[in-house]
């Protein structure tokens, strides 16, 4: 409606329109309901079932780090071993196109990987090569599932596989950490100090 149109309206209707309030207060506060609907989309939190799973993974990492730290203190270093496996450096752990496992998880995983990198050189050469190859394989698997999640966001199969892939990666890191822990920084692993 243009100003010219309004001028053509009968006077009584025009006056009535003029008397209408410029804004109307709703009868009840609608914002909480709107906010509740908007919040999930804005924050994109992990699905409810992912939180306990992510927490469990963090627990595994934390306990492995504590164990490794305690065992490191117990063993006096007898020789220096050059750190190896520089490729054990992880990018941020993403969970599909727009979700991440968070900085705490990334930091814990990185610390576990760095600790392993300092010890991996004491593994028998063939086992070391296999381990490095397989850690790369685990990273490749996570990347592949993440790529699939770009195609099919929220797919339950892919989310389950990805979560388990991250768990498997941590399990391997923690397991090898335990196998090589308690050996100080000697040039080779001593089976008497391996963790059963």
């Amino acid at each position, binding site marked *: 409606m243009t100003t010219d149109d309004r001028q053509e309206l009968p006077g009584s209707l025009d006056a009535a329109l003029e008397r209408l309030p410029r804004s109307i207060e709703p009868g009840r506060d609608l914002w909480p309901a709107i906010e509740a609907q908007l919040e999930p989309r804005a924050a994109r939190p992990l699905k409810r079932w992912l939180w306990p799973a992510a927490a469990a993974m963090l627990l595994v990492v934390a306990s492995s780090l504590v164990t490794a730290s305690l065992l490191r203190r117990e063993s006096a270093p*007898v*020789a220096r071993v050059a750190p190896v496996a520089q490729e054990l450096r992880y990018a941020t752990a993403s969970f599909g196109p727009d979700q991440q496992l968070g900085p705490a998880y990334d930091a814990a995983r990185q610390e576990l990987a760095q600790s392993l990198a300092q010890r991996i050189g004491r*593994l*028998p050469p*063939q*086992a070391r090569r*296999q*381990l490095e*190859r*397989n850690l790369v*394989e*685990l990273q490749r*698997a996570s990347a*592949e*599932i993440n790529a*699939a999640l770009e*195609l*099919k966001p929220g*797919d339950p*199969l*892919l989310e*389950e*596989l990805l979560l*388990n*892939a991250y768990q*498997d990666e941590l*399990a*391997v890191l923690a*397991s*090898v950490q335990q*196998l090589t822990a308690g050996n*100080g920084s*000697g*040039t*080779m*692993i*001593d*089976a*008497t100090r*391996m963790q*059963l």
Partner: protein
Amino acid sequence: MTRCSPAAFFHRARLGYPLLALLAAGPAALAGTPIEERAPADPAGQVEVSNTAGSVVITAWPRNEVEVTGTLGEGTERLEFSSSGKLTRVKVVLPRQSSRVQGTNLVLKVPAGSALAVNTVSADVTAAGVRGSQRLQSVSGNIHTEAAAEDVECKTVSGDVKVTGSGQPGLLTVTTVSGDADLSRVAGEVNGNTVSGAFTVAMGDTSRSRLRSTSGDLGLHGRLTPDARVDFESISGNVRLDLQGPVGAEFDVSSFNGDIRNCFGPQPVRTSEYAPGRELRFREGAGTGRVRIKTLNGDISVCNK
């Protein structure tokens, strides 16, 4: 505790000065120092063994004693052997700063009811006839053992695992990074986890089985108990389930990129019109068991033969 250092061995054996002179001639003369230890042991006690390189061979015998024979590798510091109460320990101790140590070959005879805990780095582990629980761990050594009704746990990085069961139900847990696992005549519950190893399981009755891999192939051949729970998961490894006898289970099979084949009849359906993904859900027989198989790229085959 008995310490089987080379000097102690020669002293015990009363081999006299000529051999002590040989000992003084240098470490090379110590290569293959024989081991001979024996002590009473609890018939259901625990035997712990650790040996970095070489081999560990354990067999059960009907005596309440543990016997250790074999050869101590050149450069080894000593063999520790102790038996107290329910615990017998056999440890090959290495010098902390030497990297030139030859493998030690240990041959143990233990009471059949013993529980085993064995740790090695590159030494192969072989156990036979032991009925107690077993925890066998090696970085790159292979593990071969026989399982009875008690729990058996095998863990390696690159070593292969072979377990032969007796058909009695038990809990078997196998974890490798790249090592293959061949599990036969086992029953009850099997848990397997690997990155790239191939797992082959031949079971009698399976009540609970959970196998996971990143790229390794997984295969299970066996009979499902009525309340069986079977769970396979792999990213890019192929999964094959061959069932024997009558089958009564709900099947939930899905793959993002892999093929799904089955001998039961129903065909997999696409999960989306625009993206990859197939799933196959069906009920066979009474449907009281549960079979779940998930892969990203691996092919899946489910058959009853």
